[in-house]
């Protein structure tokens, strides 16, 4: 299944070596060692790059498919460019081919001692399962990292941007500084409900992936989230925080965004 998709993308990327990193419902992510146009880019990693590819979907009418592929790719690049402009850490875009659904972006993350990439998930799992060290899991390093993640998400929300798919796999750690990735489901919204759902999705994801200590992690996340709302940088942060947290309680009770209409 993956092979014919790789063939599809290789047509648009001749002579570019591709290594599959992950496969989602909508896109494939590859890693490559070749930069498309410059050998010494202004990026921390100069020997590794990421290519995200949205393949054709055979079930869609070709016109609809072409429009979606193009618009989603544009939307994702726009979102990432805006984040960079706002100083919110996200991968930088290197190149894009909108009609073919291809985005080249910078490689982020380091290799953990066990070889996995430094997503929040892998890092916590490393402490939880590989080292199985509770004092590390509940120590100040993890605490600070979670607080930083909360600060980052708070900043995102204060700019009325919604990630749309917050999980511990979509947060990378570059030297304990968190970076958000994967904006395929991202959107813009000032509504407390949408921000609450964004947080709720993360909460649930933490619970299911890191059940043992997730209450601590989430507590620290929210701590960071609250902290940034109090910052002078953002007007009426306090008010927005109250609204979002109130909605979060509602969403938690409901279990989902909306009550059914029958």
């Amino acid at each position, binding site marked *: *299944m993956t092979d014919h998709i790789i063939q599809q993308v290789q047509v648009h990327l001749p002579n570019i070596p591709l290594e599959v990193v992950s496969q*989602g*419902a*909508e896109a494939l992510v590859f890693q490559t060692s070749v930069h498309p146009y410059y050998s010494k880019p202004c990026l921390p990693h100069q020997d590794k790059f990421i290519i995200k590819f949205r393949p054709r*979907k*055979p*079930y*869609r*009418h070709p*016109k*609809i498919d072409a*429009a*979606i592929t193009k618009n989603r790719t544009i939307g994702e690049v726009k979102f990432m460019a805006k984040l960079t402009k706002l100083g919110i850490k996200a991968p930088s875009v290197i190149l894009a081919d909108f009609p073919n659904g291809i985005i080249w972006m910078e490689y982020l993350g380091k290799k953990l001692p066990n070889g996995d990439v430094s997503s929040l998930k892998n890092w916590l799992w490393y402490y939880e399962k590989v080292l199985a060290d509770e004092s590390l899991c509940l120590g100040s390093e993890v605490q600070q990292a979670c607080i930083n993640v909360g600060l980052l998400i708070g900043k995102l929300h204060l700019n009325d941007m919604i990630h*749309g*798919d917050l999980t511990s796999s979509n947060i990378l750690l570059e030297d304990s500084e968190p970076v958000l990735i994967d904006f395929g*489901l991202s*959107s813009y919204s000032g509504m407390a409900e949408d921000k609450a759902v964004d947080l709720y999705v993360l909460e649930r994801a933490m619970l299911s992936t890191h059940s043992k200590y997730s209450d601590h992690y989430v507590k620290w996340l929210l701590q960071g989230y609250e902290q940034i709302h109090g910052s002078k940088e953002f007007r009426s942060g306090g008010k927005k925080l109250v609204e979002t947290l109130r909605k979060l309680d509602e969403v938690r009770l409901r*279990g*989902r*965004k*909306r*009550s*059914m*209409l*029958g």
Partner: protein
Amino acid sequence: MTVDLDQYAKPGKGYYLALGLEGSANKLGVGIIKHHLGQLSSTNRAEVLSNVRDTYITPPGEGFLPRDTARHHRNWVVRIIKKALVEGNVRGTDLDCICFTQGPGMGAPLQSVVIAARTLSQLWNLPLVGVNHCIGHIEMGREITGAHNPVVLYVSGGNTQVIAYSDQRYRIFGETLDIAIGNCLDRFARTLMIPNEPAPGYNIEQMAKKGKHLVSLPYTVKGMDLSMSGILANIDQIAKDLFGKAKQVKNKQLIDEETGEPITSEDLCFSLQEVLFSMLVEITERALAHVNSNQVLIVGGVGSNERLQEMMKLMIQDRKNGQIYATDERFCIDNGIMIAHAGLLSYRTGQTNDLWNTVCTQRFRTDEVFIKWRDD
């Protein structure tokens, strides 16, 4: 599945019989189902003894109103129950329980049917089992197709949800943010004055088969959910522009860019289906990826649409061991047998409703129900 389903079996009886009553929308259905003792499996299937239905159909251009629908159900319910008993060769007193749709659905029709259920329960001295309409669809779909743990796409006039089972609940992964897909199609059928016989959605499907030009419509998937009211408003406007009878609207002709041919109603039906179904397949695919599954079960009236099934098949083919399950119109359109089946599962795990606890409710979320008969 090692839940004991025979704790409440009547001594000396090797099977259970349940009667199910469904009337949450315009279909009134009564079904009688038989479960033999023991776990349900490929060698111990539930038996459909009867499955009778009457649909309240309104003239073209009109939808069905709660009050009229309730009247229809009241007029037909006794007849349908009698027919079901005769076809199933069962007497009322042979039954173990009376199952009814407790919700979700339209208030007045639900009410009419629950009154019939309560009456039968007192008449034959049988316990009542309230059933969630969606759970009925899901459990019947699983039983008929043999799909054990698929991601379920539930699409009907009143519901649009993507569901996956986890920890004794059918959890909603994605759903409509405004109207249901069946509702969207039905309303467009009214705009075009398409007949409601046998069902407006069926007629749109037949017209769509003759359409070929794709009209541009908004595509509104939002994460794991989708929205359809904007698309409906959009296509309603296009239809009004093309076929409007209002004197001040000059009949505009919409031309397909590529071929120069005029756009027809068939083209509109085609375009609407293509965009709505693409969205459904997309959110289903997202759920599949999320729970790491490769099986899809489509339930609900809109599930009988062949184009939807075709698109879903195309999507699933790209996945390892991908499989799609669907039932025919006997079971995917609202019916009484699914209520009997789900209700009987509930009954066998000791869940019945006391009389005072049989109030119907228009809002009844799929994930509110505790699935006691599964423990996987």
